[in-house]
């Protein structure tokens, strides 16, 4: 115990008593974070345990969510979370990377500064404000100008775009999430693109490449691991986003077969049902959904951090 504790205190602090206590205090603050993290995991895990024991693996494969009759299957929520987040990525990644390219390769300073600042502002807008705008502006607009025309034309043959246009839908959720994660993905992508050595660009141009060929064939491949990391960080954010998507996705616990149908996400069901859950099993089932969401975001974020860290390592060499 003595030795393992003293290993936490750096060599410089071994001599002086006040330095030693300073280093010990700092280490205590530092270690508080992993301890808190583990405590959150354990506390949520313990609260979810009754549901884990009661439903076993069926919890994540069953589609039947019926609190009144004590039936709890989380698949519609897992599906809704994944579907809306992936849709958000499909929309957000091209936009964010395009924006990052525009800002690093093309835009003059007088244009790059305000646009960069604007995306920072987008990142600062609270989730509930996005939700409010989503309900009253985005959803009616999508219903009238995107969903109805598509459902009446392409939707007749393509199932994805079929069905009645409710407005509140997986699609609305994906779009609002996309707007919210673009600033994060583009901010990280911008840094990564800016880190590509100037010599690489100049070499490409000197060989006769056009600006786009330089960007597409030289700069982007060089920055790709970082952009993937940024994308996965954005995915982590989309998976856990709660308020905005709760307000636009429609909150119906079914697996939607069309982009225009309402869905439900893991975070949304927590927001909507948690304070009303009175039955112990219902509460435990919600806790298990929280635990699953927690687990997924830990995995996604760890992977993203690992990628970004590897890019930093490579750049450092």
């Amino acid at each position, binding site marked *: 115990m003595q030795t393992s504790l003293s290993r936490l205190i750096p060599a410089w602090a071994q001599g002086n008593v006040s330095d030693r206590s300073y280093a010990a205090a700092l280490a205590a603050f530092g270690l508080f*974070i*992993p301890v808190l993290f583990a405590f*959150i995991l354990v506390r949520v895990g313990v609260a979810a345990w009754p549901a884990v024991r009661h439903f076993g693996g069926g919890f994540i494969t069953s589609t039947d969510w019926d609190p009144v009759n004590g039936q709890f299957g989380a698949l519609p929520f897992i599906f809704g979370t994944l579907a809306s987040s992936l849709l958000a990525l499909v929309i957000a990644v091209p*936009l964010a990377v395009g924006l990052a390219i525009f800002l690093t390769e*093309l835009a003059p300073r007088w244009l790059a500064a305000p646009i960069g600042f604007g*995306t920072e502002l*987008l990142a600062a807008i609270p989730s509930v404000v*996005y939700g409010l705008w989503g309900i009253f502006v985005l959803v009616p607009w999508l219903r009238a100008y995107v969903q109805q025309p598509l459902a009446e034309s392409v939707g007749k043959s393509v199932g994805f775009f079929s069905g009645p246009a409710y407005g509140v839908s997986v699609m609305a959720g994906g779009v609002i999430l996309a707007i919210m994660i673009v600033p994060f993905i583009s901010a990280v992508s911008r840094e990564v693109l800016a880190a590509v050595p100037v010599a690489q660009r100049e070499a490409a141009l000197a060989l006769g490449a056009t600006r*786009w060929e330089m960007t597409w064939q030289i700069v982007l491949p060089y920055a790709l691991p970082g952009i993937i990391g940024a994308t996965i960080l954005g995915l982590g954010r989309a998976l856990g986003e709660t308020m905005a998507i709760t307000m636009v996705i429609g909150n119906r616990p079914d697996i939607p077969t069309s982009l225009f149908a309402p869905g439900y996400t893991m975070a949304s069901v927590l927001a909507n049902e948690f304070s009303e859950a009175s039955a112990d099993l219902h509460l435990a089932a919600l806790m298990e959904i929280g635990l699953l969401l927690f687990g997924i975001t830990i995995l996604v974020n760890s992977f993203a951090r690992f990628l970004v860290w590897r890019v930093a390592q490579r750049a450092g060499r």
Partner: protein
Amino acid sequence: MSGPAPQPFGGADASAVAMPVLALSWRDRRRRTTSFVMLALTGVAAALTVLPLLLIFFHLLRAGLSSISVSFFTHVPAPVGEAGGVVGNSLLGTVILVVLAGAMGLPIAIGAGMYLAEAQGSRTANVVRFVTDVMNGIPSIVIGIFVWAWVVVTMGHFSAFAGGVALAIMLIPMVTRTTEEMVRLVPRELKEGGLALGFTRWRTALGIVLPAARSGILTGVLIALARIAGETAPLLFTAFGNPFWEWRLGQPVDALPVRIFQYAISPYEEWHRLAWAGSLLLIALVLAVSLAARFLIRSPYKGR
């Protein structure tokens, strides 16, 4: 890259070298067009990402401005049907929650950030840094249910205190990482100067390094406070919301984002109007704080 076929120097070909634009092959023309179109598309992407920002501000101002007045800040929400439901108590609640979260979270976060900066390279510090980053990505709703299971169940009821704990848990990883970065920006020479004068490590750290990083840390703190002030999800089952004035920490308290959420999902036209007005107020608060942080306070060591 097949341009014009290579030719010996001189002769008629010299003009092609001097004026390559005239000598473009069909293929080169296509390459140029592709380049132009794709680069223009990145400009379109930039415009498309800024568009929602403009639209959101436009709608906020249009729908929100008309509802803001003095009584908006000084009164509590009215029942449906009565004129002038307002958000004074929600504003107070948000201030209480943010102050509580800061009081609980900031000392830990700044201490942990100092730890990460001082213990650079140690394996423990790397683990702490990694966990901090992962913690930054925990969905806020999960923090909400954790604090519910931990604080609310223990106390037996919702409270401002529980809301403060939830926001503090969100605050800690953000401020820890900015503190670390800002402390690491302080030039080594300052620290070495302190040590050379015979200061102990802790006096150097607290008396020289930390003050030198102060403005950068303050910026990070303000941005983080602005962010938690806009959080709704972790407060739903902790602070819970309360339609009356409340300043006791042991009681449920309102928060501006929670109030906006409840107004927005209500079926009443009048409440929707208030949701817009509340959002305008919230965004003005959040942006004022983060802009102040960005422009008024500049770290002297940034950009080195």
